[in-house]
């Protein structure tokens, strides 16, 4: 009977073990990588909006506070988008015939809401709440980036579970004084603290952040 295994078979076998392991590793690597690219997370992409609303203009140049428009951000899970009436409290008098603002005036006259395209959207199986983050000193900037510089809105962070956990494991790296939550590093009236770790440790105690529970699956998946 001839040999079933040629002398080369040994080498083949060894090669296929290594090769298989490599293949598996690259497969998972690629899937993992693709999952975190901006193609999947839709980071840094500007969406079409009914009106080209500029945060840079209204926040940096005009100095309007986030809460003037996102009024429920301190008290509820949802930050809320401004109703047309909020725009009209100024635009009934400023830039009254700009064609850019035609949809706003139409919406106010007819009572049909403007349909903003959502930029940030977590899957429905994740529970998120703005008010607790704001009240414990997490700035808008830590999660939304430099909104005050955005001519058009985009999503700065991945909003993936990994990203939430990065902060939930070490909130002291991000926590701020409550008064600074609405400020941005590029604005003149705010500068990042010299020693974030000292301030962080102090505020974690001061605001009674309960770090032990922040990694429990049940706080985000209820």
């Amino acid at each position: 009977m001839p040999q079933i295994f040629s002398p080369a078979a040994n080498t083949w076998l060894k090669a296929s073990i290594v090769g298989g392991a490599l293949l598996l590793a690259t497969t998972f690597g690629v899937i993992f990588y693709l999952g975190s690219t901006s193609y999947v997370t839709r980071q840094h992409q500007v969406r079409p909006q009914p009106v080209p609303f500029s945060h840079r203009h209204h926040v940096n140049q005009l100095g309007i506070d986030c809460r003037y428009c996102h009024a429920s951000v301190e008290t509820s899970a949802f930050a809320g988008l401004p109703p047309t009436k909020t725009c009209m409290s100024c635009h009934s008098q400023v830039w009254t015939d700009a064609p850019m603002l035609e949809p706003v005036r139409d919406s106010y006259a007819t009572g049909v809401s403007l349909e903003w395209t959502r930029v940030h959207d977590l899957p429905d199986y994740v529970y998120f709440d703005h008010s607790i983050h704001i009240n414990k000193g997490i700035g808008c900037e830590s999660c939304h980036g430099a909104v005050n510089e955005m001519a058009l809105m985009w999503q700065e962070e991945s909003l993936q579970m990994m990203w939430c956990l990065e902060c939930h494991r070490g909130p002291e790296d991000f926590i701020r004084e409550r008064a600074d939550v609405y400020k941005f590093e590029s604005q003149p009236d705010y500068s990042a603290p010299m020693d974030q770790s000292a301030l962080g440790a102090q505020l974690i105690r001061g605001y009674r952040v309960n770090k032990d529970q922040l990694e429990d699956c049940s706080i985000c998946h209820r």
Partner: protein
Amino acid sequence: MKRNPMALIYTGLLCVLCLAAASACRQDMHDQPRAEPFEESDFFGDRRSVRPAVEGTIARGHLRLDEHFYTGRIDGALATTFPAAVTIEMLKRGQERYDIYCAPCHSKTGDGLGMIVQRGMRQPESFHSQRLLDVEVGHYFDVVTNGFGTMYSYEERIDPADRWAIAAYIRALQMSQGANLAELPESDQQRIQQIVEVEE
């Protein structure tokens, strides 16, 4: 049995395909049938999932019997008093709310030359005019609640307690403009002295 090494590769590729296909199932869980706030609804005619309350509904805890607190009036006339004692916390809260909602037009000092006015908004009267110094505090509450001329109402965004806090803060602003140097705390007196010296 001789194993074709290619089989391993094919199995590997098949796994990749299955995984890729499975990832498409995510979407169902991403957008569940319940309505999130502001989400569009294909059930209601106006496509709003947030339903306006039926006329005449009063939510629990929102029955407004206290005329003074909820309308700024007593027996129909503008109130001249606050419904509760003014405290330092109330003034601080008022300052914060004023800076968010009023300062864009009325400016942080209340002179009516805020940023939006500089960009073309009608200029409101300064809070330091004699007429507005003399007016009942109920007027401030009433304007925020119902609007005034070209100024829109802020009823939805500022709750009644905060409207009183803002009214109290406006009173504090008014007092600050006519303040006597000798009445200020020591540290503030020194700071003003320094500024005066620098400017001379």
